[in-house]
């Protein structure tokens, strides 16, 4: 029994060096050669970092495309879904309020034009994407506020639309909201 204790302690020390120091150090070193140098990929606008490519941020001004609701108010120092159950009456009321808000800002929409992803909170609270439909229904509003041609915005969205992995796997027809808005701000 005593020998097991000594062996266990020594093995724990040896494995700690291998698994907790050497292994992550190797990955950290290799990661330096990735986009963002292992710190996470950032997006810049006019030479200033304005966000992380993979992380949602708050867009609620009428001149921008809006992303999905967030249970953590887009706080990237935390993350969570709403964890609201599908039949929770308070939750359903909240979704209904979001629908009403959307209809207020987009008077040209009917309820069934609104795709669910735009009125439901994402799993992480930081989902960077919206579905293509969710972007398209916002075009008219953004075009009016910015005094732009709708077709130009549709083209911009088309250019920003992401495809399935290798054209084969997973959902396509989605748009990264931050990238879209940065491209929008860069438009002449």
């Amino acid at each position: 029994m005593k020998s097991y204790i000594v062996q266990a302690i020594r093995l724990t020390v040896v494995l700690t060096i291998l698994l907790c120091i050497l292994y992550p150090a190797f990955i950290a070193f290799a990661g330096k050669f990735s986009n963002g140098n292992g710190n996470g990929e950032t997006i810049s606008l006019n030479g200033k970092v304005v966000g992380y490519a993979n992380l949602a941020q708050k867009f609620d001004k009428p001149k921008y495309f809006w992303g999905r609701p967030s249970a953590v108010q887009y706080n990237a120092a935390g993350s969570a879904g709403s964890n609201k159950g599908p039949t929770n009456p308070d939750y359903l009321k909240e979704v209904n309020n979001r629908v009403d808000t959307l209809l207020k800002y987009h008077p040209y929409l009917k309820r069934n034009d609104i795709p669910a992803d735009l009125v439901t909170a994402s799993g992480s609270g930081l989902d960077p994407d919206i579905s293509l439909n969710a972007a398209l229904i916002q075009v008219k509003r953004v075009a009016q506020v910015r005094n732009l041609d709708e077709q130009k915005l549709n083209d911009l969205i088309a250019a920003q639309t992401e495809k399935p992995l290798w054209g084969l796997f997973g959902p396509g027809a989605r748009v990264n909201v931050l990238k879209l808005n940065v491209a929008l701000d860069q438009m002449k």
Partner: protein
Amino acid sequence: MNTELLGIVASFIITLLIAIPLGKYLAKTFAGEKVWTDFLKPIENAIFKLSGINPAKPMDWKQFLKAMMTINILWLVYGFFVLLYQDKLPLNPDGNPGMTADLAFNTIISFVVNCNLQHYSGESGATYLTQHFIFMFLHFTSCATGIAAAIAVFKAFRDKTTADVGNFWMYFVRSITRLLLPISAIIALILAFNGTPSSYAGKDKIITVQGDTVNVSRGPAAPMIAIKHLGTNGGGWFGANSAHPLENPNYLTNMVEIIAQFIIPVAMILAFGYFINRKKLGWIIFGVMMVGTLMFMVPTIIGEVSGNPMIAKMGISQPTGSMEGKEVRFGPMATGYWSTLTTVTSTGSVNGMHDSMVPLSGLWQLLAMMINGFFGGCGVGILNYLVYLIIAVFISGLMVGRTPEFLGHKVEAREVKIAALITLLSPFLIMAGTALSSYMFVHHGNADWAVKPSSWLNNPGYHGFSEMLYEYTSANANNGSGFEGLGDNNIFWNVSTGIVLLFGRFLPIIGPVAIAGLLGKKKYVPESAGTLRIDTVTFGIMTFAVILVLNALSYFPALALGPIAEHFSMK
């Protein structure tokens, strides 16, 4: 074909393409035959030498379990204190606080037992030191512990009559050097080059396009996320687990992570067949488990793709299915596929929030964890299944009026008693826990804890009950996923699930190892025409029926109060 469906079909095919050769490789590696990774032997020898271990020393099943429990208890004690004082230790760039005693108790047990319930959030509740030196360390070692225990059982059945189940340290270290570490490194590199942070930089402060100031949590997550999946651990770097866009940045990483968490459970089943020279048995077990898994997976995916009926009633269109708690880049199919695999194996990582899925998806997740024998966790999956096999052999024996035999050994009262106790343990822990928490919720709503019982639940009614049921089910199955709306960081949940975790882990390991040790010592009876053959489809169906009947009898009443009632309450 629709690209979402193609994505999950491809994930499944790739899993098999990796797991089948991996199963053969594992069987050979642990049998001590020549394999191409033998060039790693000097490293293993160095590890043994530095630790003062003689890996060739035989162990009987009692010595084996003693060695295993000794090192596991060591990690419990050492880890508890590191978590308690993590704020005073280095590698804490975000200045996160130490854990409370009850949270540290729950967390350390949870990681030692390969569960990872995580009543804290990684961004604010853990330091880089604890994430690596405790959590990631235990991701490797808890998985290796499970594999070692399974190999001991394999050996006892292969060697016909023997007292020697093999050396614990040997199996344990080899699982890490020959399997977990090399594959983790590959996965971690894929993640790091797809957007998962790998550097030690702390929080970043940015000013967004609209001018808000936001802090962004980062850290060396890539190496941990790799082993968290490969080792069926599931405890993530960030609070939102693999739904978090830095932990799981795109569909490629999503495929890699879901494949990673399924290859070892599948490979271990096949390895069992190869190791004991009954290839067919391995495939029959695989077949039973796969049928069980599909039984949960197909309705889950259909339910999630169809969307939430309550949202549909509002007149909102759900072209991408039920989206609450899901991420657009994965879609409902990949999330449904993941939610099934993460609950049949004991991973418990999530790429979408289970609490927000439609009621019947919750039913399938709960059932998968209650059965806990379709694939299951690293190593322990096959051990759980072994218990079901013994019960099935016993019942079949009674039906045909013969002494039950298992792999050439007579199964007698002692072994059946152990198997029966292990089978009864799960419903006892889950039901007693849920009953107790329901009682506290109803009668002691104002108890002075960090979260008052009256505000435990994030959802009212049947769904609230499901949140409590899910937590104990997940703890007992050492799964680690949750209906995360539950306010579980308080002394009641931390302590009660901590205890369930310990029993739910170690008894189902000790039981099967003891059965194998006891059977292994008995005289080998060669198979004859009168033997009940267990490597047949008929016996596979028999086992499947036993599993369903046992679990339906145990859990139907509780499930009827939770997800089933919720489903029928939606009109």
